[in-house]
């Protein structure tokens, strides 16, 4: 078991006053709240904070913790409580306040008697009071990243997630669950999929919870998504822009031919109806034209450009800059 340095977690010194501890906790809780923070391990950080605060805000627990801290960790950083250790401020007596105590660490449980040992009282959330009661299973929220091609065509995906369920002794244990899910064509970023009854199991004959999957789209090297529309930048040669041309453009589905109108300029948007994300109201593909130049010109081409410069000498490409 690893020793947890709750002072370091809260970023305060050992001699911090209760006020300082509270202040630091509040600041860090805002920063790492999983609904607010975009940091990758915000979830774990936030849980750690809650656990550290649970101990340090309570003078009795803090006293016990300080004592253990003096007793110290082993040379390899592992930790065992002193023989015969028993917390006087333990949670079995219903000392819980308002954190999601289910997720406290092994260290915490060893020292203060954890949530999983059961018996904590009101206010500990829906999963706390699982014993003997008929209780609907928990809803599980998961995210699923799809490639654009998968979202476009629909696909079959394996989804793994964790559910919590009571074991025969009434202790909450987590279990990894895996489902194969058929994703319909045309899913968009942020859309939810609901799988009825695939969440945590209910207790006492109650219904299981649902699984909610939020779809995320991985960035694509060529396409971006605007609502149901798919946007792609398509380079064309200056003469294709000037004279008009039929060019082949990619869509997520298949290649299509696109007529570039004569006299097109860079940045012009052309719409391919119904070539966006499929669905009841399929989106369009939007092509943004981009005039591309060869990296080098032949002597012949340079001569032609000289003629062009002469023929178009009234054109000032910088007129909007007033120069």
């Amino acid at each position, binding site marked *: 078991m690893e020793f947890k340095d709750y002072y370091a977690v809260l970023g305060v010194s050992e001699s911090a006053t209760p006020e300082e501890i509270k202040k630091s906790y*509040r600041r860090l*809780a*805002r920063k790492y*709240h*999983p*609904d*607010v923070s*975009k940091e990758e391990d915000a979830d774990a950080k*936030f849980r750690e904070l*809650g656990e550290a605060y649970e101990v340090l805000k309570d003078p009795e627990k803090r006293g016990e913790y300080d004592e253990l801290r003096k007793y110290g960790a082993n040379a390899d950083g592992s930790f065992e409580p002193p023989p015969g250790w028993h917390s006087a401020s333990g949670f079995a007596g219903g000392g819980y306040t*308002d*954190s*999601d105590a289910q997720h406290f660490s092994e260290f915490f449980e060893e020292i203060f008697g954890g949530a999983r040992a059961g018996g904590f009282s009101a206010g500990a*959330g*829906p999963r706390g009071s699982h014993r003997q009661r008929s209780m*609907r299973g928990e*809803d599980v*929220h998961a995210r699923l990243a799809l490639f654009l091609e998968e979202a476009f065509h629909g696909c*079959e995906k*394996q989804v793994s997630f964790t559910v919590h369920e009571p074991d025969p002794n009434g202790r909450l244990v987590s*279990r*990894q*669950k*895996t*489902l*194969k*899910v*058929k*994703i*319909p064509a045309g*899913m968009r*970023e*942020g*859309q*939810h*999929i*609901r*799988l*009825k009854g*695939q969440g945590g*199991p209910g207790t006492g004959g109650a219904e299981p*919870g649902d699984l*909610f999957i939020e779809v995320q789209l991985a*960035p694509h090297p*060529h396409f*971006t*998504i*605007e609502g149901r529309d798919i*946007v*792609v*930048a398509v*380079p064309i040669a200056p003469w294709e822009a000037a004279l008009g041309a039929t060019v082949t453009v990619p869509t997520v589905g298949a290649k299509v031919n696109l007529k570039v109108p004569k006299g097109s300029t860079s940045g012009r948007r052309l719409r391919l109806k119904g070539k966006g994300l499929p669905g*009841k109201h399929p989106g369009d593909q939007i092509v*943004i034209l*981009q005039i*591309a130049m060869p990296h080098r010109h032949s002597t012949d081409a340079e001569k032609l450009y000289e003629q062009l410069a002469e023929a178009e000498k009234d054109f000032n490409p910088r007129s909007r800059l007033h120069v």
Partner: protein
Amino acid sequence: MSNPDHTLTVVVSDDDGSTFTLREICERGDCHAEFVIKLVDYGIISPREEAPEARRWEFDVAALGRLQKALRLQRDLKMNLPGLAMSLELLDEVEEMRRELARLNQQMQHLMGEQ
């Protein structure tokens, strides 16, 4: 009970109109109806159709997600209702801007890339 060989066909919640009544959403959120009614009053969540009787309200999956977020923020950060309303709005805005920024960055790369 885990059975990866079994393929589940999905119901897309935005389209299938699956909704929760006030009672159901309270059960799922593990909160009192008064709290949900207050969230509706503050415009934090809204039923699909604004009916005068709360008993006839129907909420979609997004509303459930927001309710749960509101409950977590209230529990963890001790926020009151006006604070919740404002934070959730700002969080939505931030999320939307992040997406937009990512999209624009990507699009700009696509536009510049081939030069």
